[in-house]
C-alpha cells in the first residue's frame, strides 16, 4: 500500500519538473534565439515478483510475469535546437544564423562562450559586442567615421571609409555535434560541456555551418499553443497522481477501521 503512495509521488514530482520546464519556455517566448527545453521521463526499476517465462510446474510456463513498477523519474531536460522564425528588424547590427552555427563571444574571464543571439552593439572602441558587452571572437572593430556597415552571407564584414569599400574582418561561427549537450549559463549564452563535443570553428556558408543574414533576428522557437497543450496534460497528470495518493490513503483508512 505504501508503495503506491510513493509511486504516485514520483509521478507528481516528474510532472512538477515538467511544468517548471514549460514555465521557463513560456517566460522566454520573446527571448531572441531562445531554444525551448523538454523534460524527458523514464520508468523506474521494477520489482519482479515472478519473471515472465518462469515455470509454474514442470513443463508449464506462466504466460505473463508479475512485475510491479516504482513510478517515473526525470531522465533529462534537453534543449531542442530547431530554428526559430526570422524577424526582420532593419537594424544593421542584427544578425541571424540560418543553419546550425553559433556566434563566438569572449567572456570577462577570457573564455569563449557561444550564442545564437545575433543582436550586437558597438562599444566605445568600435568593437562588435553583445548586449552584455562581450566582444565577438575574432574581434571586429568598426572604424570611426565609416558607413554602410554590411555583413555578407559568408560573414565578411565590409564598411565604406571615405567612399571606399573596405573589408574589416570575417565573423566566424562554431558548430557542435550535440548542441543539446551544451551548458546553458544564462544571458542567451552556452558553453562547451563534455556532452556537446568540441566546437568546430569555421567561416559561415561553408561545410553546413549556416549563413549569416543581416538585419534579421532569430525569434524564440517556443510555440505557445504547443506549450499550452503540454501544460494542460502536465497539470492533469499531476492531478491524476494526487488521486492515486488519495485512494491509497482511503484504503489505509479502511484498513484502520476494520476493527
Amino acid at each position, binding site marked *: 500500500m505504501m508503495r503506491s503512495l510513493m509511486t504516485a509521488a514520483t509521478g507528481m514530482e516528474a510532472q512538477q519538473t515538467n511544468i517548471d520546464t514549460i514555465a521557463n519556455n513560456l517566460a522566454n517566448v520573446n527571448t531572441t534565439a531562445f531554444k525551448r527545453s523538454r523534460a524527458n*521521463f523514464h520508468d523506474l526499476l521494477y520489482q519482479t515478483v515472478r519473471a515472465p517465462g518462469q515455470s509454474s510446474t514442470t513443463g508449464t510456463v506462466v504466460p505473463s510475469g508479475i512485475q*510491479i513498477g516504482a513510478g517515473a523519474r526525470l531522465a533529462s531536460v534537453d534543449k531542442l535546437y*530547431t530554428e526559430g522564425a526570422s524577424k526582420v528588424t532593419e537594424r544593421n547590427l542584427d544578425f541571424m544564423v540560418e543553419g546550425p552555427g553559433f556566434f563566438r563571444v569572449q567572456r570577462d574571464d577570457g573564455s569563449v562562450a557561444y550564442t545564437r543571439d545575433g543582436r550586437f552593439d558597438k562599444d566605445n572602441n568600435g568593437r562588435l559586442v553583445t548586449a552584455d558587452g562581450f566582444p565577438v571572437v575574432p574581434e571586429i572593430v568598426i572604424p570611426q567615421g565609416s558607413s554602410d556597415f554590411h555583413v555578407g552571407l559568408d560573414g565578411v564584414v565590409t564598411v565604406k571609409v571615405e567612399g571606399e569599400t573596405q573589408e574589416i574582418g570575417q565573423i566566424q561561427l562554431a558548430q557542435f555535434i550535440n548542441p543539446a549537450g551544451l551548458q546553458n549559463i544564462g544571458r542567451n549564452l552556452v558553453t562547451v560541456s563534455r556532452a556537446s563535443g568540441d566546437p568546430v570553428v569555421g567561416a559561415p556558408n561553408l561545410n553546413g555551418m549556416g549563413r549569416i543574414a543581416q538585419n534579421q533576428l532569430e525569434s524564440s522557437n517556443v510555440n505557445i499553443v504547443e506549450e499550452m497543450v503540454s501544460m494542460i496534460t502536465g497539470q492533469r497528470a499531476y492531478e491524476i497522481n494526487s488521486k492515486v495518493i488519495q*485512494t491509497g490513503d482511503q484504503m489505509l483508512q479502511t484498513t484502520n477501521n476494520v476493527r
Partner: protein
Amino acid sequence: MLKSIYTPLSGAIAQERVLEIIANNLANVNTVGFKGDGVTFKLLEAEPEKNYNTPLPPANFKISMEDILPLRGNEMLYVGVAGVERDLAQGPAIETKNPTDFMIEGDGMFAVNTQEGVRYSRSGALGLSPDGILMTQAGHPVLGEKGTITLRANAFEVNARGEIYQDGQLVDRLQLHKFADDSQLERTGNNYFFFGGPPEQRSLAESPAIRQGFLEGSNVNAIKNLTAMITAHRSFEAYQKAMSNYDKMMDKSSNQIGEIRG
C-alpha cells in the same frame, strides 16, 4: 478459528497490488514510449484438507450446491494476482520536429546496447554523444545493422524504413526487432525491455515504419486507469467489510456462546 477470514484477506492484498500497478501506470502517463500494465487474477487453491461431506440439498432444491459454492468440505480458496499483462498498443503520435526524435508505427522495438547486454525500447527520444554516436536519454548507444551508429553532425534524415542518410549517403539502418511472444519481455526501467525468450522468437522487422520528428506518447489511458482504481478501492473496502464480519462472528462464538446469564 474461522479460517475463511483469510479468503477476503487474499482479495484485499490482490487489490493492493492492483493499486500499485495503476499508480505506476499513472506516474508514467507522460513518459514517452511507455506501455501500461493490466492485471489478471486467478483462484489459488490451498492444499485440500480432509474431505467432509457437503450436506446434501433437499430434493426439491433446483440448483446444486456446487453451482453456488465450488467448495467441498473444508477446502479454502484464495485469490491472487496471476499475472501483469502489458498492453503493447500504439501510443499517440506527438510531433516535435526534432531530428533526433523517432516514432515506430506498428510493431518493433529499437535495440539498445547497455553494459548488461542488448535491451529493447519503444522510446525514440534519442540524442547524439560528443563523438556523434546516436544514443538514448540514458546514454546507451542505439544499434543499427552495422552496429553503433556514428553521425557527423546533427543534420541527417531517416526514412520510414529506418535508413539513415547523411549528405545523401546511406550511413546505416536502425535495427528494429519483433518478438513472437511479447510476454517474454521483462521491464528493466529506463523504458527498456529485456527479452528472455529463445533467440529464434526474435526477428528483425522487415517493413518497419519509422517517423522522424515524432515521438510516441505513453499509451496509458487515464480514464480506464481511474475507473480501475475506483473498482480496486471499492473491492478493497468490501473485502475489509467481510473481514470485519468474520471478526464479529468470532466475537459471538467466543464471547456469547456458552455465556452464563444470571
